[in-house]
């Protein structure tokens, strides 16, 4: 027996897979966006709206769930390319699973791909999926205290989309307080309060997404 010093983080192999996938996506000119949130925050509804609004772009969606294919069917009905991924009980997507889904999609001509991660504010934040952008959703009914309870999710996200703003009148959700709490954890985070139902705020989010796609294709 001999001793081998490794001092490697357990997620090192995932980080390598993630970097490889990001590079592959970049070569291909496709922007992969990792969508993270609690179950029921409106990920599929938001995506449905974006698919309808950004008609000039070719969009794809990877639906990651523990079971069922209801979300993938909803997305395909709108004309976007969708693939359902089952995580076999796992609470998050990792880079290897994302790369396999990308392979299975066989859709190299897509502009934007949304990875709808498993509904969960904890574990998905710890795994790099290989996405170029991390986007998190927080819906008004969930409460403005979530940045205090799930700091890592807010720290790892490039943008926070506050959804269901059409319900602000019915809940004790303090928008300013929520923004302040999120910025305290992550000063650079972009924040978009939206209602996918009424369309309020969607233009800002969508123009940010198209800008990021252009930047992803320009940068060396």
């Amino acid at each position: 027996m001999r001793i081998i010093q490794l001092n490697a983080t357990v997620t090192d192999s995932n980080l390598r897979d993630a970097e490889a996938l990001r590079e592959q996506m970049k070569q291909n000119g496709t922007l992969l966006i990792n969508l993270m949130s609690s179950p029921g925050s409106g990920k599929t509804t938001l995506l449905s709206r974006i698919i309808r609004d950004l008609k000039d772009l070719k969009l794809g969606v990877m639906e990651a769930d523990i079971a069922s294919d209801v979300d993938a069917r909803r997305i395909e009905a709108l004309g976007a390319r969708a693939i359902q991924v089952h995580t076999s009980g796992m609470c998050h997507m990792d880079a290897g699973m994302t790369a396999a889904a990308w392979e299975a999609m066989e859709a190299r001509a897509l502009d934007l791909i949304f990875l709808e991660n498993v509904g969960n504010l904890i574990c998905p934040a710890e795994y790099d999926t290989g996405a170029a952008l991390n986007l998190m959703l927080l819906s008004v009914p969930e409460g403005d205290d979530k940045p205090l309870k799930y700091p890592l999710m807010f720290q790892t996200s490039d943008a926070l989309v506050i959804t269901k703003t059409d319900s602000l009148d019915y809940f004790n959700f303090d928008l300013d307080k929520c923004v302040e709490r999120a910025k305290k954890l992550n000063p650079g985070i972009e924040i978009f309060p939206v209602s996918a139902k009424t369309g309020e705020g969607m233009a800002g989010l969508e123009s940010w997404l198209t800008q990021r796609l252009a930047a992803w294709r320009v940068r060396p």
Partner: protein
Amino acid sequence: MHEMGIVLHLAKTLDQTAEENKLTAIGRVVLQVGEVSGIMTELFTDAWDYFKVRHPVLKDSTLVLETIPAVTWCDHCKQTYETVKYGKTCPYCGSGETWLLRGNECVIKEIEAE
């Protein structure tokens, strides 16, 4: 289950290490786990026992978990304190401008192998 995902990555990394170093069997695996890494050690060991028999090089391995205490730094009064006891708020000055220094890692320190 969170632990299962970590164990999968651990097994994958060790399989690769075995291949690169031409190892035939791995014995002790020393893992350093931070106090606030969110890893439940009992669940972790159970998941390990489930997976190790599925990897020939790992089948006789044993997992040794070492705990790394969590320490937070206060940016306001420039002191450190125990994270588990006081959380995000500095016990000396009450500031919330605090950052975790260590305690959320999960590192493979060393392995015994032949």
